[in-house]
């Protein structure tokens, strides 16, 4: 049994441990006797037709422009792949490029793919990068699940007619204001969570693998796997994020006036507009 997977720009978009996400998908599939056949697609290269899974990570600003240009070339292919029900999963800069556009501080625009109805604005004057440990709550069948990771982004993403991936419990999320994190539409999922997000959030890896496996017509459901090490690492990350959030709250009173864009998410942050299975 094989899942055909594409890793977009593995050499240029590989910041922040993104290869851990590839390793997690590969390993949790292999433990179930499913092979993930990865195709590495670099700038200017031709992707394989009809993959089951497409992954794109984060990268440095310098390469972002080259990647954004190249993605316009791949846009019909990626649109077709998504319409066909394959999994598209993007992290950080990958998330930003799935939206309509990225508006730089000087007003310049980086064109996105428009696969998800959202846009990202660069940090404004006096706004800090949103950096730190983050925990979000993601609606899932059988009740909400947690994702723990690390975020580091200047851009503030604002969602249009698209669901967030989850709700921020501690950390900043898409823009540090509305309490949303990531975005999803059907089988297109995007998040700001590095960490990397997949190894220690095993349930989410399995969720993604399930989507890819369904597209690959692998009929049997994914068998359960032991996850004690994963859970210990996730619990550790959640503990760190909660401690950080408490420390921020203690400092918050003084700092909030200085950091308009990096406010603590209010406890009453709006829930996702509707639960997403």
């Amino acid at each position, binding site marked *: 049994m094989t899942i055909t997977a594409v890793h977009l720009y593995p050499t240029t978009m590989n910041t922040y441990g993104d290869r851990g996400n590839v390793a997690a998908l590969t390993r949790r599939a292999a433990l179930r006797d499913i092979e993930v056949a990865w195709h590495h697609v670099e700038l200017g290269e031709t992707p394989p037709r009809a993959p089951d899974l497409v992954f794109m990570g984060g990268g*440095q600003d310098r390469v972002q422009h080259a990647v954004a240009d190249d993605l316009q070339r791949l846009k019909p292919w990626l649109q077709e792949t998504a319409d066909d029900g394959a999994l598209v999963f993007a992290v950080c800069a990958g998330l930003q490029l799935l939206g309509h556009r990225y508006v730089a501080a000087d007003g310049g625009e980086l064109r996105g793919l428009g696969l998800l109805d959202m846009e990202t604005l660069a940090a404004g004057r006096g706004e800090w990068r949103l950096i730190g440990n983050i925990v979000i709550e993601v609606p899932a069948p059988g009740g909400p699940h947690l994702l723990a990771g690390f975020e580091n982004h200047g851009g503030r993403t604002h969602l249009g007619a698209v669901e967030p991936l989850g709700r921020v419990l501690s950390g900043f999320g898409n823009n540090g204001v509305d309490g949303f994190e990531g975005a999803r539409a059907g089988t297109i999922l995007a998040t700001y969570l590095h960490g990397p997000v997949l190894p220690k959030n095993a349930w989410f890896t399995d969720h993604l693998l399930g989507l890819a496996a369904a597209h690959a017509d692998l009929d049997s459901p994914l068998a359960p796997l032991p996850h004690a*090490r*994963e859970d210990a690492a996730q619990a550790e990350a959640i503990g760190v994020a909660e401690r950080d959030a408490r420390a921020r709250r203690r400092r918050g009173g003084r700092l909030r006036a200085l950091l308009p864009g990096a406010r603590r998410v209010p406890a009453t942050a709006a829930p996702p507009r509707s639960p997403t299975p």
Partner: protein
Amino acid sequence: MEALPRATANLVAAAIRATGAGQASSLPGKVANALFPRYLSDHARRLDDGLVMVTGTNGKTTTANMAAGVLLGAGRDLVHNAEGANLLSGIATAFARHPRARFALLEVDEAIMPLAVQRLRSPGVVVLTNLFRDQLDRYGEVDRLAEGWLRALRPLEGTTLVANADDPLVTHVAEESGLPTVYFGVEVEGGGAGNEVSDVAVCPRCATMLTYTARWLSQLGDYRCPQCDFARPPRDLSAVLVPADGPGATARVSGSFGACEVRLRVPGVHNVYNALGALGLSIEVGVDPPSALRTLAAYQPVFGRWSMVRRGDTTVRVNLAKNPAGMNQTLRALGDVPGAKALVFVLNDNIADGRDISWIWDVDFEELLPTADWVVTTGTRRHEMALRLSYAGVPDERLDTAAGVGAALGLLAQRRAHSVFLLPTYTALKEVRATLAGWEAVAQ
């Protein structure tokens, strides 16, 4: 008036020593800088024989300590922040301790370098070791650091750079700075970086993917841009690794002075780079190359930079490993050490370590982790480290987590592991030092 800041810093240092709160390598300078804003510039102005700096992501401490050994051996009197306290506070502390020195050799944090140049004075020599991803949450992207360096270097006059020609980003900075540059580089036959993450994938000039004939460590290698004429420059100081027995690294070093074989007591290609940087600096300030090379060959590491301690029949070697390039290189050097071994990884996520620990997923554990009888993880993110090593294929029955460095060593003592390698992040080094305080230091 000049005596007052110094007296204050000395007083703080004495008070800290008296209360036993660590080695006081930063706090006295912090107080002096806060109370006397011109503390650094006043000291820098009095350095009649000059000021030289070492900066970069990895190898700063060892390069600077190697160079200090050479200069002290050549009879120079100097002020030097030997303990890796490389922020303005650490530099000020070094000045407070050695106020009459006429020459300063400073290790400078790569992000602080522009500020240090501004607050001190134009340095005579700056060694640029490398730029790797490190603490991305604190330093940001390596491109940003390079831009900061360029802004600081461009206006300088009378400064010579000693730059790593094998690092495309360092080379770019050196070329764009317009400053005279001594390039150093290493030849590693066959490369060996495999699919290791590179931090500079594209040409710093035109953003085309760089091509390599060989790449041996992250982006270090023999590179060229297929689009523009950017390429690895000719090296003024060059080293070829020579296979040899023993724990250190042996290299054939050549330059305008000729060529000779140098046997370092510290292992790995990274230490050959450190030695070349130190050699370049030493030659620039007037030390004759043969005597510099003799001193370099005798270099003994400072604690935590591949240092060794012993108690009974157990030896522990300690090497700071805090970013992918450094950890990859540490693992390569470990692999060259014969015999059974146990490994302890101490992963902390405090501010000075970088809060973001995702860098461990960019380390090539899959290919480089040597066979070990036991692997123990500890530190604030020990479970993430254990998961990472489990992914790299360490079997569950050989992989443990422990609550602290002492507990990890206790566990290994029970298992009769006699050769232990401790790999801490920056803040973990302090706990390691405290835990090993009663052990006997071993020369290498």
